[in-house]
């Protein structure tokens, strides 16, 4: 009975509203502006804290990411959906996670933050949103011509536990903050990395988000994909609920500042706001879901989704070390080039892992 309750439309709307309000409040409680929850930014901060990049202003172990995975784990265990599985082209998923992060950091946000930036009045996010839709649309083209990363296999329980254990380890690093000779664990003393809500509040809220999202299958990329591909608006109602709830909360909390110039952690180069999200949208669609969804899947034992998340962490390190990530001044030195190369790689993946390749061989 409870199972049906969670898969009803009411609860995807509830989940969207819960995430929207939570994000606005987490900003009020200290998280960076329009970044109450952002999977890309927060994974990037974790990569920085671990010393995988040295951008001093974005280093912090974000408990939100930990909460997402562990909340999903709790829901999956409670409802007998913890199903360890692996083996569906893991290396391709790593590459897709890597490239999705490159694209997201050119725009400066994942699909979740795209919505939160819009809800905060950031007009630049409109270009990111259009890019996201275009990227998803290209991904749908490949799905329609038989794109398939292959079947996964049931595997040993311990494989499914690896990601939750990594998250528990990160939590220990966050609480005990060991200082090693290399300087890790890094915690920003200024910039967005130094802005954060109290750890326990952020953890509890995101445990709840992880729980609800696992039950309702909340996915921002799936939302747009399903409307176009199978004319299903279930996930889309959740995303719209998130946007409206965040917008109303921001208006109440006086966090709504409409405009294009001087928006927090954003730039006004619209071509690359658009381009970055085309890449991210395509990579997420080829991998089967938005970065939040990948975290929730990794919490319920999907090791391929976990590999995607590890790809995102590696991509975040690369993005800052190789100057592909944007700043509020605009795209990084290698940002545009990295988007173009990333798109080419995604197109090759889409082409070579679909029926198109087969058809070409036959002709």
């Amino acid at each position, binding site marked *: 009975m409870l199972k049906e309750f969670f898969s009803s439309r009411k609860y995807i709307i509830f989940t969207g509203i819960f995430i929207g309000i939570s994000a606005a409040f987490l900003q009020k409680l200290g998280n960076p502006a329009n970044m109450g929850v952002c999977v890309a930014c927060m994974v990037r901060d974790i990569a920085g804290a671990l010393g995988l990049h040295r951008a001093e202003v974005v280093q912090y172990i974000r408990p939100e990411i930990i909460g997402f995975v562990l909340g999903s784990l709790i829901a999956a265990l409670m409802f007998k959906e913890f*199903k360890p599985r692996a083996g569906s082209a893991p290396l391709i998923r790593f590459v897709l996670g890597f490239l999705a992060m490159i694209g997201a950091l050119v725009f400066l946000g994942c699909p979740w933050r795209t919505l939160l930036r819009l809800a905060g009045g950031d007009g630049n996010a409109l270009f990111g949103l259009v890019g996201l839709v275009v990227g998803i649309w290209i991904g749908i083209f490949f799905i329609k011509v038989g794109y398939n990363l*292959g*079947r*996964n296999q*049931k595997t040993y329980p311990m494989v499914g536990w690896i990601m939750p254990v990594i998250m528990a380890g990160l939590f220990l690093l966050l609480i005990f903050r060991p200082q090693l000779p290399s300087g890790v664990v890094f915690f920003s003393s200024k910039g967005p990395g130094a802005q954060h809500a109290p750890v326990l509040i952020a953890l509890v809220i995101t445990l709840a988000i992880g729980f609800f999202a696992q039950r309702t299958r909340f996915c921002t990329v*799936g939302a747009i994909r399903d409307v176009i*591909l199978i004319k299903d608006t279930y996930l889309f109602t959740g995303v719209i609920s998130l946007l409206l709830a965040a917008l109303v909360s921001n208006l109440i909390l006086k966090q709504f500042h409409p405009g294009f110039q001087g928006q927090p952690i954003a730039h006004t180069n619209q071509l690359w706001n658009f381009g970055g999200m085309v890449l991210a949208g395509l990579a997420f669609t080829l991998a089967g879901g938005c970065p939040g969804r990948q975290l929730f899947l990794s919490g319920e034992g999907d090791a391929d989704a976990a590999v995607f998340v590890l790809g995102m962490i590696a991509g975040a390190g690369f993005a800052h070390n190789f100057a592909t990530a944007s700043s509020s001044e605009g795209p990084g030195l290698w940002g545009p080039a990295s988007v173009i190369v990333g798109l080419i790689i995604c197109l090759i993946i889409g082409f070579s892992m679909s029926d198109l390749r087969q058809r070409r061989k036959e002709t």
Partner: protein
Amino acid sequence: MNQRIDTRGLSCPLPVVAVRNKLLEMKKGILEVLVDTGTSKDNITRMATNTDWKVEVKEEGEEYLLTISK
């Protein structure tokens, strides 16, 4: 003999897309679908019900057998 699709191990959204294509092609009849995740079970059930097919779900251990008919 009923038609059958095995979606086990396929990642989202391939199971629901495969079933949808098959249902569009069949127009009526009975289709059995083997599913191994709650997500695919929910997606397929929602899609089929929305397009006026009847869905029966049977849990078989860690998997589900969906019988879709019209």
